[in-house]
């Protein structure tokens, strides 16, 4: 906090697509022209010096960025990595002149293309917007006007930032859309935002951002709302555009693996302070700060084998009988359907589910079969629209289904489930968003205790004292302090909330947990702790997890078996190792290839033998 971290980011070494720049130890010393501040062609695209930003005024002011120095050369990519609350978006907004009114720079300077923009007013920024700085926001749908066609909004950017006239603007817009890889661009001009997919919208936003040929592009988590395969295509597009147009890109992300793969230089931010910075290669090979090392260890993409041994121990204990249990049982749903019901926690056969009774539309789930072996973790993987959440809801008894057979713990599910679930003791669902799934008026104590009150016959539910004891016991198992008992969900942090949700699911001691993307809203460090918790729980008692996720790197790290879904159909199902190393399916390969930071993971392993 006392000294601002001084940096001279080495972004000057050449970096091609295939071979990121070699960190040159001599490079930083050659930058002595900082004082020049001329707007000449050699001025860096973005330079921040000792930047401090606070929100609020007077006594309420709270500083969130504590003296950050960054340097982004023209034509390079600088990735700014940090968790939520680290101040990375604030820095991005400041660099684009987009700070909200309550935020202001209290110290330091911002230079954009050599010009001091620290104290610029909104109208001064306007001259630079579009032509000097382009901004790609995080939420594509929320960033476009829903009542105007894509063509109009793109045309507006062209008219404002280029010399395009009324006559030429349409042709230029088509050209731009084609440039960002939108097929049938002439027709898409008349589409409204809601008619396009998330990936297409993000392409339109990129087209708008580059319409005025800026030199600096600020991309604030441009892909965090997108599926992995779409993410890869969008980032590939950004890379191409960067090379073509000579863009400097400030890439904001929480995903270290993604940053490692896509940047020349890397800056790691923690609580508004730079903790690690330098050429990406250098940071990967030898992270200076313990926080960076922690991030690498927590990101599933960069530490795929973290739980390998524990998975093996658990698999042996589950005693599926075979040496390579996963490969056989997972791939043979027929076998388990006929006889071995005893070692299957959940069996799904030929599941078909239509929504809204519309026969014309393709079903949300179309003939999916898989088996969750007792005491194992089975991951359902797919992109949005693949039907994975629908399957989880069917298995949990929240939704009916059209055809097929679902067996949970030996009980065949009815195709139209009861409103109130009488089988809560067998299986519990952990929702994706714990804040939404917990009653906002209930204290943590009431939320966890509620299942016990509803099922009074159980061993822990007979009396108030027994129930209170059980609540404390479960709370301890999810490693929460007793102080949280009287708090409301909104007073807890994201990780604590998910622990409360897990505690509520565990309090009836079910055998099976269905986890619907339980970590997708969490930072990687918090995610790592929740995953750790899930392993500990499995080690303490026999639990079977049906784990829904879109994150293949997480699957590789924690699951025994995996079922890959695409548009409601099962692509394949089998042991994780077999699917990852030896899949015959093109779709699976595409998903695996979209995992960011595969190179980074290799670099890490080399660096730490």
């Amino acid at each position, binding site marked *: *906090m006392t000294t601002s971290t001084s940096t001279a980011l080495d972004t000057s070494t050449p970096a091609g697509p295939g071979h990121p720049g070699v960190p040159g130890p001599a490079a930083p010393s050659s930058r002595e022209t900082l004082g020049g501040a001329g707007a000449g062609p050699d001025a860096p695209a973005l330079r921040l010096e000792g930047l401090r930003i606070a*929100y609020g005024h007077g006594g309420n002011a*709270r*500083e*969130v960025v*504590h003296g950050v120095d960054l340097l982004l050369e023209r034509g390079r990519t600088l990735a700014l990595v940090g968790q*939520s*609350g680290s*101040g990375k978006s*604030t820095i991005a907004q400041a660099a684009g002149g987009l700070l909200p009114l309550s935020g202001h720079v209290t110290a330091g300077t911002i230079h954009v293309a050599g010009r001091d923009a620290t104290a610029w007013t909104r109208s001064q920024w306007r001259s630079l917007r579009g032509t000097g700085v382009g901004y790609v926001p995080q939420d594509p749908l929320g960033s476009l006007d829903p009542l105007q066609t894509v063509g109009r909004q793109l045309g507006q950017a062209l008219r404002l930032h280029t010399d395009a006239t009324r006559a030429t603007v349409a042709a230029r817009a088509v050209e731009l859309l084609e440039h960002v890889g939108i097929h049938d661009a002439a027709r898409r001009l008349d589409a409204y935002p809601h008619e396009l997919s998330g990936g297409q919208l993000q392409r339109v936003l990129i087209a708008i951002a580059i319409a005025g040929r800026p030199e600096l592009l600020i991309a604030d988590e441009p892909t965090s709302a997108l599926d992995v395969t779409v993410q890869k295509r969008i980032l590939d597009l950004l890379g191409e555009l960067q090379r073509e147009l000579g863009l400097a890109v400030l890439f904001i992300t929480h995903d270290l693996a993604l940053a490692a793969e896509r940047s020349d230089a890397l800056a790691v931010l923690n*609580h*508004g302070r730079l903790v690690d910075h330098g050429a990406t290669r250098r940071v990967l090979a030898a992270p200076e700060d313990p926080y960076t090392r922690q991030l690498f260890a927590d990101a599933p993409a960069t530490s795929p084998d973290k739980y390998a041994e524990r998975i093996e121990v658990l698999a042996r204990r589950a005693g599926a009988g075979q040496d390579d249990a996963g490969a056989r049982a997972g791939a043979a749903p027929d076998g388990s359907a006929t006889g071995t019901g005893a070692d299957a926690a959940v069996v799904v056969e030929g599941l078909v589910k239509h929504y809204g009774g519309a026969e014309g539309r393709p079903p949300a789930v179309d003939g999916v079969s898989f088996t969750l072996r007792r005491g194992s973790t089975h991951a359902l993987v797919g992109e949005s629209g693949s039907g994975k959440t629908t399957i989880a809801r069917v298995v*949990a*008894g*929240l939704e009916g289904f059209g055809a097929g057979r679902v067996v949970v713990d030996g009980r065949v599910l009815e195709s139209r489930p009861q*409103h*109130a*679930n*009488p089988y*809560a003791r067998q299986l*519990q*669902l952990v*929702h994706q*968003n714990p804040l*939404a*799934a*917990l*009653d*906002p*008026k209930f*204290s943590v104590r009431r939320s966890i205790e*509620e*299942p016990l009150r*509803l*099922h009074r016959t159980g061993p822990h539910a007979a009396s108030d004292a027994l129930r209170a004891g059980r609540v404390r016991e479960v709370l301890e198992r999810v490693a929460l302090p007793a102080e949280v008992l009287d708090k*409301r969900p909104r007073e807890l942090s994201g990780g604590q909330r998910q622990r409360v949700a897990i505690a*509520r699911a565990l309090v*009836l001691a079910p055998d099976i947990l269905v986890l619907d993307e339980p970590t997708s809203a969490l930072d990687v460090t918090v995610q790592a702790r929740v995953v750790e918790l899930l392993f500990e729980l499995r080690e303490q008692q026999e639990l079977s997890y049906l784990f829904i996720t879109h994150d293949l790197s997480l699957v590789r790290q924690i699951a025994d078996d995996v079922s890959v879904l695409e548009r409601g159909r099962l692509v394949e199902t089998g042991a994780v190792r077999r699917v990852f190393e030896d899949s015959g399916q093109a779709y699976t390969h595409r998903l695996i290839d979209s995992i960011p930071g595969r190179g980074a993971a290799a670099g890490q392993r080399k660096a730490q033998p």
Partner: protein
Amino acid sequence: MSAQTLPVTTSGRRSGTRIVLGDWVALAFLAVLLLAIAAPSWIAAYDPLEVSPGNTLLPPSPAHPFGTDYLGRDSLSRVVHGTGRTIGASLVAVSIGLGVGSLLGLVAAYFGRWVDAVVSRIVDVLLSIPGLLLSMVVVVALGFGTINAAIAVGIASVATFTRLMRSEVLTVRNLPFIEAAHHIGAGPGTVLFRHVLPNSYTAVLSMTALQFGSSILWIAALSFLGYGAPPPHPEWGLLVAEGREYIVSSPWLTLLPGLVIVLTVLSISRVAALVRSQQEALR
């Protein structure tokens, strides 16, 4: 951890937990009203029914702070003695509207389908009849009198409460935590009264405070038309109505009782907001 390291998104508690001057004023005013209900003759110096032919239409003075009316009765005493009747009738009206209305709204929205269809159509019919006309029909059927007027006003306000409650419940019942409650095995009754109701009554409570004010006015209107309290008895609405004829020469006869009505309504809504924020802070 210093304040500086807190993430940006951390927001403080609502500021409404502090009791400010305005709250004290509202509380004090309601205390005076309570006293006026419990022991009106402590506050009022005169008999509200005592006619004094020599002192008609006097302007406000230390002896008669609210002036006197066309029969020479002390206006302040009439306001004070009318408090119990007016507040009581409004309470009855609001309780009927709130109780019946919320229950109907809750049930309609939660069960949906035909239950919702039936309730909603009834509500539509009720809303299509002007409220005052509806109250008049009811009060004619029940017979004249303050309590009957209150019941009539209550019935006329049921539809508004039903509508509001229904829309609130419709929002809440699709939230994930309702589904989560079903998932852990809760039946419809438990979910309805433990989860849905506590999360949807906030707006309805605010509405109640507002409705309390309009009930006072409606009951006054019915009294004015002769359906409510019979004339010699003081009642706020009746006082305003009686003063209307002298509004040019003696405006205080209308304005001062009207001011009391306004202050009552404001104080009630202020205190209601205070109670709600205190509750939230306590939990």
